[in-house]
């Protein structure tokens, strides 16, 4: 619990790190209707594609400095020699990022979805999808950020982006499934299955990668 609180306070102090991605998400979703002026009544056609891409980009931005500041000031080395498991600390950090960035973005996704589609059930179905996908994306981009620790976040995002593409495909298909009234829960379960593996695997791999950087 102390670690969770500590990570929360650390992220809270870095306003730009948690508010930035939320504002970027907000701006993308606000700008989207402006770019399709001629078909305002059919916004929902492209809305969900833009929504998933906006979540992806926001999560990519969110993980930009997830490890780099600690790496530069030497606190990552201190964290490794702590008694608490390093993998556990990484998991906690990702959870905090998700709570402060992923969850608000999921709530915003619901609001934007409701405003665009005017379909309450469809908008409610967006919540679990955005909550799970934002957590998956955070984990994947945290991995990318660890891999390219002192080489800039762009490289990390680029090398882990291919791993995020199957999630985007599943997200697209799950909305179609919901609209057609078929298999929606199966897609949620598929995403949860991926998430359960990622939650365990990513912190372990990230810890090895960071140790390799510090060797």
């Amino acid at each position, binding site marked *: 619990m102390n670690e969770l609180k500590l990570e929360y306070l650390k992220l809270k102090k870095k306003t730009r790190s948690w508010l930035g991605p939320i504002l970027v998400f907000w701006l993308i979703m606000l700008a989207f209707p402006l770019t399709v002026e001629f078909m305002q009544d059919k916004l929902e056609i492209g809305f969900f594609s833009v929504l998933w891409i906006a979540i992806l980009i926001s999560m990519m931005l969110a993980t930009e400095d997830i490890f780099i500041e600690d790496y530069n000031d030497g606190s990552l080395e201190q964290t490794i020699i702590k008694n608490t498991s390093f993998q556990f600390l990484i998991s906690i950090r990702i959870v905090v990022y998700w709570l402060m960035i992923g969850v608000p973005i999921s709530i915003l996704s619901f609001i934007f979805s409701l405003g665009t589609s005017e379909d309450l059930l469809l908008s409610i179905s967006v919540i679990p999808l955005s909550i799970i996908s934002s957590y998956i994306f955070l984990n994947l981009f945290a*991995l990318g950020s660890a*891999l390219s620790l002192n080489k800039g976040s762009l*490289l990390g995002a*680029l090398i882990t982006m*291919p791993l995020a593409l199957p999630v985007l495909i599943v997200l697209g298909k799950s909305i179609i499934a919901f609209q057609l009234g078929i298999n929606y829960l199966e897609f949620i379960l598929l995403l949860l299955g991926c998430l359960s593996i990622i939650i365990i695997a990513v912190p372990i791999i990230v810890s090895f*990668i960071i140790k390799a*950087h510090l*060797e």
Partner: protein
Amino acid sequence: MIKKFIHQFASPKTYLYQVNRFYPYIFYSSLVIYIISLIWGLFFTPEDFVQGNSYRIIYLHVPASFLSQSLYLAMAVASVTYLVWRVKLAAYLIIAIAPIGAMTTFIALISGSIWGIPTWGTWWQWDARITSTLILFIMYLGLISLHNSFSNFEKADKLTSWLVIIGAVNIPIIKKSVDWWSTLHQSASITLTEKPTIDVLMLYPLIGSIIGFLGLITCLVLTSSKYQILIREKTKSWIRDYV
């Protein structure tokens, strides 16, 4: 005995000398097999009753697709070997295979696109098999970029190995994509467990082209790995004797 053989062969010096010994045999036999299979497939097999002559691109597309995934698997095995047993040669192989894997994946994508025009009526479709193969191509490029971004080879090898292992999750997705999703891409015609669905007249040259292409790509990998060894071991005294 096997352990001793592996340890001996895993030494860059032994590897280099063994590669030089076997290289000409692999190269010339593969070249002959591939050329014969290609001529056989292109000129001496019957037309397909649905696809006409356009199916003949399989003699390039199928070997390239098969190898694009196999090379990634080989990299994954090499990565595990490097991370677990710290075998230097495995690390050299990873980065030797990556550009060749990218090339074969690119050939698979391009030949698939060319085949798509007469059969599907489109160059590209965001179909599960094609998209996952494109992801594989991007993964190869990502691995090369990651490795090249570090000047410290040891660190680059470790991080690239981790990324290779993580990316290996894409291989079963590519393999099973035609079964898990309803796709435009047809299911595999040759499997280990079932009787081939392709006519034997087309099958034999196809198997020949796969074997020939495999041999030629193996030669490319061997050349690329030799280059890696010469760069990485350039300070060693035996390299000077070798050169």
